[in-house]
């Protein structure tokens, strides 16, 4: 068994445009920036836009890319910020 993890990645039709997708999405991006540092962070964004041009990107691919560039394991961070049902701990440099 592997359980596929989903929410704001999979908000469901009802919550597709809910606050959590926007507000929490933005907070997740900032948590990533604090965790990996500015240099890696902007490298990730730049690469993401280039690699995903003319294609659709998934959360999994974004996590993959962030890990590749930062050299840090980030699934726990994304899980907590995107899918967790509790308030995540404040981000700090990893």
């Amino acid at each position, binding site marked *: *068994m*592997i*359980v*596929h993890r*989903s929410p704001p990645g*999979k908000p469901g039709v009802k919550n597709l445009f809910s606050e959590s997708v926007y507000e929490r999405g933005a907070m997740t991006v900032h948590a990533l920036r604090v965790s990996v540092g500015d240099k890696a962070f902007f490298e990730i964004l730049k690469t993401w836009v280039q690699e995903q041009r003319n*294609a*659709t*990107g*998934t959360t*999994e*691919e974004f996590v993959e890319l962030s890990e590749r560039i930062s050299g840090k*394991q980030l699934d*726990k961070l994304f899980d907590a910020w995107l899918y967790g049902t509790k308030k995540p701990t404040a981000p700090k440099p990893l």
Partner: protein
Amino acid sequence: MAVAAAVVLAGCLASGRDDDRFHPGAAEIGDPYVPGAGNGGYDVDSYRLAVDYDPPSDRLSGRAVVTATATEPLSRFNLDLVGLDVSTVTVDGTRAEHRRDGDELVVTPGRGLARGSRFTVEVAYAGVPTARPDGQLGSGGFLHTDDGAIALGQPYSAATWFPVNDHPADKATYEIEVTVPDGLEALSNGVPGERTSTGGRTTWRWAERTPMASYLSTLVIGEYRVTSGTHAGKPIVTAVPERLAATGPEATSLARTAEIADFLAGRFGPYPFESYGGIVVTDPRVGYALETQSRPVYGPGFFRGGQPNPAVVTHELAHQWFGNSVAVARWRDIWLNEGFATYAEWLWEEHDGGRTAQRNFELQYAMTDWSRPTLDPGRGQMFGSAVYKRGALAVHALRRTVGDEAFFTILRTWTTERRGGNATTDDLVALAERVSGKSLRPLFDAWLSGRTAPALP
């Protein structure tokens, strides 16, 4: 004191005598992770199932022939069955009394069943099968879909479509016949048999002749593109919903089944079953992939990226050795399934030119929450990261401690000696000690149950 002792002794003698008399079999197997599941007093050898499913009405009618051996002298026994109406039950060809008690079918044969005797129960039943909702995992059980149905789910789902001793400790062989309207596909476990059509309905036949735990059975009915072939002299059957592109990530992932199974056979020993395969479903309620025997079922979430997903295929195929061929006897040991399947993903990633297993170990070690145990994680954490990730750490810690040669000998001996059976963590520790000649109990205790980070081996 003397009087009290005498009373206790008399009680023991009385229950000892009772044990040799015909008595009711237990209504559950006694696994605290799945209260009510499974039954006591017998061991099933085989299920022969013939079910007819009508998608427009969601109605299923079935006949189940269950052959079992009494392990106690039984005056009556239970099978697990969720919903559905039972019309007749026979035991060895003679009508038997039956009644329902929640998710139990209680069968009282005309005469008792002697310990050690083999008996055959035949149950005729029908109704609209139901799901078994489980908030944490998404729906399991029998799901009605827009083009058919999916019967799937861990730790149980079988009892939603046939009467069963629904616990992995009682493995059995299966012959499954599924009749559906012409034009629909009906997929299940094992080797495909003859397909026949009559009166607008088609009967699909499947046989899983290697012992299988009931939660590893599946039924998938709908509009599927079925690909059949042969690999290493065994049938390989994969299926993808017709609405998905033939060259999409689902089909291309399934197409790697044989290659990945061969890679794993090189590490774990010969592939343990008579057939290969895989089924992709699109129903969003299937928020998981499950290692259904010889033919895993993959939910839609794993392919949303548009890229093939060999990692999930590796995980579910690794379970064919770890979890299916060698199954748990109690769910407290589920790390024996998930820890090894997760470790297999690390082996595949290394083989595929990604991170080494050692690197994944280091990264995972650094981020593990050691307050959660891997062994006996509790019902709510059966599918938690302590079982999967910390379980994989324990596997790699064993490898580091005993060395590669002993490690892979342990894995191959495990899959050979325990093939087709059930095993516990204690069995693994004993085997690892025997093969390596080292005392390993403290290592397993620290990596599986310790509350703090173990020293790196």
